[in-house]
Structures are given as structure tokens and as C-alpha cells.
């Protein structure tokens, strides 16, 4: 979380006050309209762009219009392995916070969506109350946590990440939650990805490992549904150990 110590226990209480819902739909619409006006003014074509935005079809918003609910299950064959291993991890560790909502349409949880600002926010859900809670029977694991114990170098990071992504069940489960820092929950992982500049990606595997001898986490994330996968070496507080991510090849 942070290197600042908290002997008072206040941090936990303050964290519980964090806004957990996505931006309200009406506010989102208002800002989108304002930004479309800005873009139109910038382009010197206010009338056309503003009119286009009203229909959600303008070029400005074309890139950011949310697709439908994001399928949580991957299309690649690796998906069953990952989900199965994650289930085992969750059962073994009792990490309830690892769950993402799978409400029929396989949406991400409202909390994760709130943190990601990503396509995980279903268009159809924009009008739903922000504090809607998922039912317990509608949850599926979000990512796998392993503790390979590997000591990665910059040269071996991409290959190591690819092996983990292909078959995470080959690696030992993590048994030390402290090593995970903020990554024990999907929201924590998504927060970390946002700080790494990739809030639209979703964590797939987190490996407790070492990096040139330094303790840390290998965070593997992908852009759903079939986007590229990348891996970062970070501390448990999400500070990059090495400045740049590596691309992870997928089978």
C-alpha cells in the first residue's frame, strides 16, 4: 500500500470510506458532452461534432464508447486453467476479495469497474445504483496468485511470464498474503494497473517472486477479450522495479 506506517489503525477505517461505485451515468454523460464541445471547438466544427455526440457516434467518442459487457472468461485455451487455478487459490487462501462479479452477463464487479474506468463497466448498467452488490453465488475468480520463487532478470521476465500465463497450476500457490501488499483484491490489482498507466487491462496472474534478488511481484495483465498481455515487475506497493513492462507471448 504505502511505506508509511500506521500504528493508529486509521488507514483501514479511511479505506472503508472510499467511493466504490463507478462515475454516475448522468455525470458521465455531462462530461462527455462537455468534452465533445471542447473537441468541436478545437476542431472548429462545433455544430457537427456536438450533434454527432448527441447520438454517440462522433469521432471523438468513437474510441471510447463502451462495448457491451466484457466477457470475463478468456477465449484462449488458457482460460480454464487460469480460472480453475484461481478457484483453488481462493479456496486455499480464503481470499474473498479476489472475486469478481459474474452477474449472468459476466460483468466485472462494480468495485473493479470503478477502479479500472475500463470497458468492464457495462453500458446497460449505467443506470443501475452504484451500490448494487453482487450476489455470493454469482462470483468467479479474477486472477491467479502463485509463488514460483523464481528470481527473474530482465532477460528472463518475458519467458517466465509466458510460462505462468500458459499454465499457472504448474507453480506453487502463494501462502504469504503479506507479500502481496495491495494485490490481494481485484481492486488492488486494478489500482496498480491504473498507476502503471494501463487501467483498461485486467490482472490475470500475480507471481510472488524475486527480481535480480529483490522481493517483488510479477503482475501479468491483459486487455480483454483478446488484447495483448504484458508483465510488470513491481513491489508489493506497486512501485515498478523495472521501468518498462514486457510483452508476454500467448499460445
Amino acid at each position, binding site marked *: *500500500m*504505502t*511505506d*508509511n506506517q*500506521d500504528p*493508529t*489503525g*486509521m*488507514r*483501514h*477505517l*479511511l*479505506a*472503508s*470510506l*472510499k*467511493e*466504490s461505485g*463507478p*462515475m*454516475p451515468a448522468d*455525470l*458521465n454523460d*455531462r*462530461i*462527455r458532452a*462537455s*468534452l465533445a464541445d*471542447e*473537441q468541436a471547438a478545437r*476542431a472548429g466544427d462545433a455544430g457537427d461534432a456536438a450533434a454527432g455526440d448527441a447520438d454517440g457516434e462522433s*469521432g*471523438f*467518442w*468513437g*474510441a*471510447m464508447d*463502451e462495448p457491451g459487457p466484457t466477457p470475463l472468461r478468456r477465449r484462449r485455451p488458457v482460460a480454464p486453467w487460469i480460472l480453475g487455478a484461481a478457484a483453488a487459490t481462493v479456496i486455499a487462501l480464503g481470499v474473498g476479495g479476489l472475486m469478481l462479479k459474474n452477474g449472468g452477463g459476466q460483468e466485472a464487479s462494480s468495485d473493479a469497474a*470503478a*477502479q*479500472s*474506468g*475500463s470497458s468492464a*463497466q457495462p453500458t446497460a448498467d449505467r443506470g443501475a445504483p452504484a*451500490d448494487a*452488490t453482487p450476489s455470493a453465488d454469482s462470483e468467479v475468480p479474477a486472477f491467479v496468485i502463485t509463488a514460483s520463487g523464481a528470481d527473474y532478470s530482465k532477460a528472463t521476465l518475458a519467458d517466465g511470464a509466458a510460462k505462468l500465463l500458459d499454465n499457472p497450476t504448474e507453480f506453487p500457490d502463494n501462502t504469504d498474503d503479506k507479500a502481496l501488499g*495491495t494485490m490481494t483484491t481485484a481492486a*488492488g490489482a486494478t*489500482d496498480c494497473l*491504473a*498507476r502503471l*498507466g*494501463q*487501467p*483498461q487491462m485486467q490482472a490475470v496472474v500475480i507471481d510472488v517472486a524475486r527480481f535480480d534478488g529483490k522481493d517483488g511481484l510479477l503482475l501479468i495483465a491483459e*486487455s480483454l477479450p483478446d*488484447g*495483448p498481455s504484458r508483465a510488470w515487475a513491481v513491489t508489493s506497493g*506497486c*512501485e515498478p522495479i523495472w521501468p518498462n513492462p514486457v510483452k508476454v507471448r500467448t499460445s
Partner: protein
Amino acid sequence: MTIPSLAEDDDRALMRRHAGGDPEAFGELYRRHRDRMWAVAVGVCGDRELAAEAVQDAFISAFRRADTYRGDAAVTTWLHRIVVNACIDLTRRARPTSELSDDVIRLAPATPDATGRVDTRLAVHEALHGLPEAQRLALVLVDMHAVPVAEAAEILQVAPGTVKSRCSRGREAIGRALRDAGFGAEGTSRPSDSSDTSGRTNPQGGGHD
């Protein structure tokens, strides 16, 4: 297809594209960060209406001022700074003193001891927003939103040690306020306490850093 390349670009690349005239790049940045900025604005403003105004002002400001982004800090740090400043401006203008809002109650979890939790959350909320602004901002970023101290220092444009000091003083002040309001060390209310916490805390945590 420009959409996939936008999605794959990192934030800095999107800022460069926006500054260079790409009409779609800022939309992608907004999509990525709107929910986090909204959450931070709610925490800093302590009021959803003010937060809505602040986050709207902030994104418009960021759109217009993209050319002032030099790339020294992460784009998220830059955005955080704009949102925090927008909240400060609006809060100072609109609401010099903190008030409780129904939003705090709405956010309380529906559990068997929900009443006690609501009491606690009300008290913490009130204590937080009774703090000096500098301490409150530090706590909202570091404790509420888990922003690393170094990044919070960049956002607030102070030294990391100052952020730590403000957090420490703020936590102690909130702890004192909770104790004064009849809550235990972990924020649990004592059996004999009233649930009415309004107007009873004054957690001024020191007037300087």
C-alpha cells in the same frame, strides 16, 4: 483501425497524441481514468455534488491544458493534481465547513451490525473533513486511495516527508476525535454511546506540518 492502437497506447502516448491533435486520444484517457478520478474527487470534496462539479471541471481543464503536461510525472499523477485542485477550489468557495451527507449512509454495508458501521463511518467522515485541509488531502490520497507517498507528494507538490507527517498527524487527530465521540480504537462504538455523532468531533490535528 485506430481503436486498437488507442487501447494499446499508454497514457503518455495518448497525451502526446491529444496534444498533437488526435481527436480520439483524450476520449480514451477519460474512459480509463474517469472512475478513479470520480472516486478521488468524492474523497477530497466529501460531497458528491461538489465532486461531480470538480471532476467535470478537472477533465475539461485537462483537455485544454494538455500542452502543459511535460511528461515529468505520470499522467495519472497530473490528473490527480488537477482533480484535487478543482476540489480545493470548489470546497473553499462552496462549503467552508464540513457537513455530513446522506451519501455516507448510503455507502454503508448492509450487514447485521450496519447501524454500528454507519455510526463509525459517519464519525470517521466527519473527523476527516474536520481536519486541516493539508492533512485531509494527504489522508484521502494515501490512506483512502492507497496512493504511494511519493506519488501523493508529487500530486500535492510537497516533499514526501511532509506527506508522511500530515498523514501521521491526521490519523492521530481522527483517532482522538473517534475516542472523544465514544468509539474504540478500531472504530467500534461503545455500548453506552449514542449513535448521534454529529457536531461532536473537532479533530483539528495541529495547525502546521
